[in-house]
């Protein structure tokens, strides 16, 4: 009798067996959704509290600011534009040590860091640890050492041209190491063309002329294009650095060119994503 009772119940909707089956299915669909989510986020660094740049438009495109523990590429055209990468580094480092890895030739070509200059921009030279390497290859291996230490704030890696060692595999490795330790890497590329890379963001930066009527000219002013962003939209911004508060800000009105939002990036660069 007991058996018959059971078989009868199993036909009903709220029978325990049926319920467990439904639950199982639901569990599965939750799992699938979770997998789907993680697949969508594949290759993206884990979510960490973003660091606001201070420029409202840029921050909104970036989803709150620069994401720590990720690789950010800055392609600078011109000497002054390279400062953009340094400023990102200052922001990303916060109060932690700021490592700057610079091969000898880069120092000779683009100038060595001046601690006074860093202080004038609102950075603290005491945070700065400069690693001078003989070659670009050494710089990359120094970078992987530095990225292993979670107490580092930010790493600025200066690489000129397109060395063979800096391929997709290397940039993927850098980006994974950054994601693991939470150290932000700013890769400053000068005299380089864009290549495929694993960077989360890619910036194309040129220095912008000061405004004609600006008496107080001289605060760094950049024409910065976010030409690649793996987790959001792109943009083109005119960003000024506020040395007093050590943060970016919108250039004063009347700036040289109104920065069009979502302007399509340079086709050549966009292709190399």
């Amino acid at each position: 009798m007991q058996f018959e009772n059971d078989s009868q119940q199993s036909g009903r909707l709220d029978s325990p067996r049926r319920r467990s089956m439904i639950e199982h299915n639901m569990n599965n669909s939750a799992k699938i959704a979770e997998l789907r989510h993680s697949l969508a986020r594949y290759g993206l660094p884990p979510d960490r509290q973003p660091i606001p740049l201070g420029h409202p438009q840029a921050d909104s495109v970036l989803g709150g600011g620069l994401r720590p523990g990720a690789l950010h590429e800055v392609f600078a055209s011109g000497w002054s534009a390279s400062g953009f990468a340094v400023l990102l580094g200052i922001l990303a480092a916060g109060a932690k040590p700021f490592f700057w890895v610079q091969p000898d030739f880069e120092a000779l070509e683009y100038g060595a860091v001046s601690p006074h200059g860093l202080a004038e921009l609102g950075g603290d030279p005491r945070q700065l640890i400069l690693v001078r390497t003989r070659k670009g290859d050494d710089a990359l291996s120094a970078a992987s050492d530095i990225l292993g230490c979670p107490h580092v704030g930010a790493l600025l890696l200066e690489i000129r041209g397109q060395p063979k060692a800096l391929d997709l595999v290397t940039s993927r490795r850098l980006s994974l190491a950054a994601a693991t330790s939470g150290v932000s890497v700013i890769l400053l590329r000068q005299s380089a063309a864009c290549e495929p890379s694993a960077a989360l963001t890619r910036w194309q930066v040129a220095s912008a002329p000061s405004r004609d009527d600006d008496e107080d000219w001289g605060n760094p002013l950049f024409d910065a294009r976010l030409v690649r962003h793996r987790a959001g939209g792109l943009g083109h911004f005119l960003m000024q650095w506020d040395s007093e508060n050590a943060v970016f800000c919108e250039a004063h009105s009347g700036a040289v060119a109104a920065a069009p939002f979502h302007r399509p990036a340079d086709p050549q660069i966009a292709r190399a994503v």
Partner: protein
Amino acid sequence: MPFKAPLVISRKANNALIVHALDARSARLGLYQGQPLANARAMVQPLSIIPSDEKADAALLESIADWCDRFTPLVTLDAPYGLYLDITGAAHLFGGEAAMLALVREKIAAQGFVVRAAIAGTSLAAHALARFAHNTIVPPRGEAAAVAPLPLAALDPDDKTLRALRHAGLKTVGAVAQRQHSELSERLGAGFVTRLRILLGAEEKPLEPRRPLPDLMAEQRFAEPILTEDAIAASLLSLAQHLSEILERQGRGARLLEAVFFRADGKVERITVKTGEPLRDASVMLRLLRQKLDALADPLDPGFGFDLVRLEAVLAEETNPATISFDSHENARQQIGFLIDRLSVRFGAHRVQRFVAQDTHIPEAAGVAVPAQDHDTYANWGPSNWPLKRLPGDPPRRPLRLLERAEEIEAGFPIAPDGPPKFFVWRQCRRDVVRAEGPERIAMEWWRSAGLTRDYFRVETSDGQRFWLYRDGLFRQNGLHPRWYLQGLFA
């Protein structure tokens, strides 16, 4: 067997060649040290003669001394042909003084040297006994008795002293020792008496070690020399663990580590690692040493293998017990310290830099790069000691990058004689100056260098780049055509 001629080494003294050293056969034939070479040639024919090479001799002695480091860390040269080994507290490791003496003699003889050795309480007594009564082991405070029968030459006297002593009818060290010391001092000088007293064991002269004595060390001997990298790494690890235990017990940490590899054939290799923080973690020690090994230009050559590996804490410092705390800031500081050590080992300490502010106006000298290992600016975290040149709210007055050397530019004629140029050519590229601010006059420090006064200008070019230029010297005062330089690049 082919006949080999007796061998002498010749040396030039007072413009004549003399016998500097000789082998046993030529000694048997009646040749002696210091004999004119012409006489020796006349006495023995054929005679093979090799000119002496003092530098090579000294280098050989050094390398033997290196090798002898395996017996005791305190080895000093007794130039030109001797070594002192201070075996205080070391003899028991080799089965007592007699066994150690035999071992040292046997090992050095095995390398093809003729060796004479003696053990005594003072250096000069050992020196004299090794030459005139070798294999002697002097019991404590027995030096006077042991050296008494030695001939006068054991005192290493110069010719005049030797003659004087002979005239006095003294033939042995013992006879000399019985004279009044004040009398000897009067006649032969205080230096002689001091030597005599050391020889008799009445006084002691400390040995000067060839290299700084390690504060602590751990070593491992191998009956079968080790060859492979794995074996070397394993031995380094066990030594590091041993050393770290000792350090732990003493509450100290190593600032300077040295790994010494003694090759079975006598060559000694050393690897030094400096650390910024007192270190006692064995795994960190091992990692630093391995990195240093990997970075060697010519890799460690084990040859026929190492039979002794030693790890020394050449410099050990007290560690503050607080360094092993759970304070997160302290932990971060320590981790950064280890990272800096690691980078310094790999790329050289001078390549991992921090900056120290200098009290000078000269831009290129105002911030000095120092090895980050030695200057922990992160530790004294206080208000910044980097003075700002700009007023609050003003744009930067100093460039972010300074060229390693200011580069001369070709400057277009300025609008005003002491104003900024209208354009300039730098690195073969003409740039038009749109904005300029200055001059900021920086005079050279007359007490340091005799440069010209510089007038600095911040300029912005038509493409929005900002540069830091200066005119070297004042217009008219230092000529009508002053030179212009580009020194820095603003962000």
